[in-house]
């Protein structure tokens, strides 16, 4: 800031910048080292209430569970994906078929049926977990062209775990 000297002229007072730059660099290094770039993670809710299921409301029609079965080999690879007793295959197209079959069962997304019905996932012990996420995802809904989620079935549960296959 300029100030008047005794002689009447202007002189420049320098603000010391070095300490501020030191601190700013230290902060910068701290934040750089602590930065973790993590991919966004999403949740799939699983409905696993404790104890015996509640008695059904007599006024409400009983909607049977949709049973999705996943059979695996000893290495955990998917051998067969079944909707009820209907085999759908074991590749990516099988999961797409599952998605369209679920839509056929519920009628249309957001229908009353979609809110009442429950999907039961029944998987072999050794099946790799990534297939479960795929199956849960395909039962839950799909993405539209704008990237919005269209929900199919809200409730997903697991069947009781199976025993591990003997080695």
């Amino acid at each position, binding site marked *: 800031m300029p100030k008047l000297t005794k002689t009447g002229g202007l002189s420049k007072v320098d603000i010391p910048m070095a300490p501020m730059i030191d601190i*700013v660099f230290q*902060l910068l290094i701290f934040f750089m080292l*602590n930065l973790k770039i*993590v991919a966004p993670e*999403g949740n*799939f809710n*699983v409905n696993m209430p404790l104890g015996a299921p509640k008695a059904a409301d007599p006024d409400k029609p009983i909607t049977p569970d949709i049973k999705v079965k996943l059979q695996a080999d000893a290495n955990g690879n998917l051998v067969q994906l079944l909707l009820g007793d209907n085999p759908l295959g074991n590749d990516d197209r099988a999961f797409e078929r599952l998605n369209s079959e679920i839509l056929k069962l519920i009628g249309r997304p957001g229908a009353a049926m979609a809110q009442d019905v429950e999907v039961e996932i029944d998987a072999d012990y050794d099946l790799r*977990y990534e297939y479960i996420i795929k199956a849960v995802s395909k039962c839950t809904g799909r*993405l539209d062209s704008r990237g919005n989620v269209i929900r199919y079935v809200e409730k997903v549960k697991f069947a009781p775990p199976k025993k591990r296959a003997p080695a």
Partner: protein
Amino acid sequence: MKTKQIEAGFTEPDMTPMIDIVFQLLTFFMIAINFENTKADERVKLPTDMLAKPPETKLDNELVLNVGFNRRPDGSHNGNAVIFYNGDPVPLEGILTPLQQEATVFKAKSADQSDKALDDVAVIIRADGEVPTGMVQELIEKCQEAKFTKFSLKAIQKEK
């Protein structure tokens, strides 16, 4: 002989552009840093899915359980999945006691201090894509034994 006198001068470098850039970098890193995700274990390679969208509202009480393998530097593993509890590998058989301790803490924090308090606690399961499904199911059973009722399975959001 006349010599030309050269006045020794000192020119200060202009620091303003550098400070501008440094402040911009600082602001970027301050905004991008995420202190919340510290419960996520980097050893767990989550499966990816397009429908896995981050939740809009976050529950106040959540218990994060990481299930994965002790991977070697090349990414391979011995096939024995473990639960990473507070960073330490714990076998499935030994997880019930820590879960019961967690349940006690959640109950103590709540107003009524009963098992109902655990209905508001979400157990977030972050399982590696290669973990056997049966193990995840057994872990859910152990959680149910400790009176937890709400479960969420985590996956990484896959871009189109």
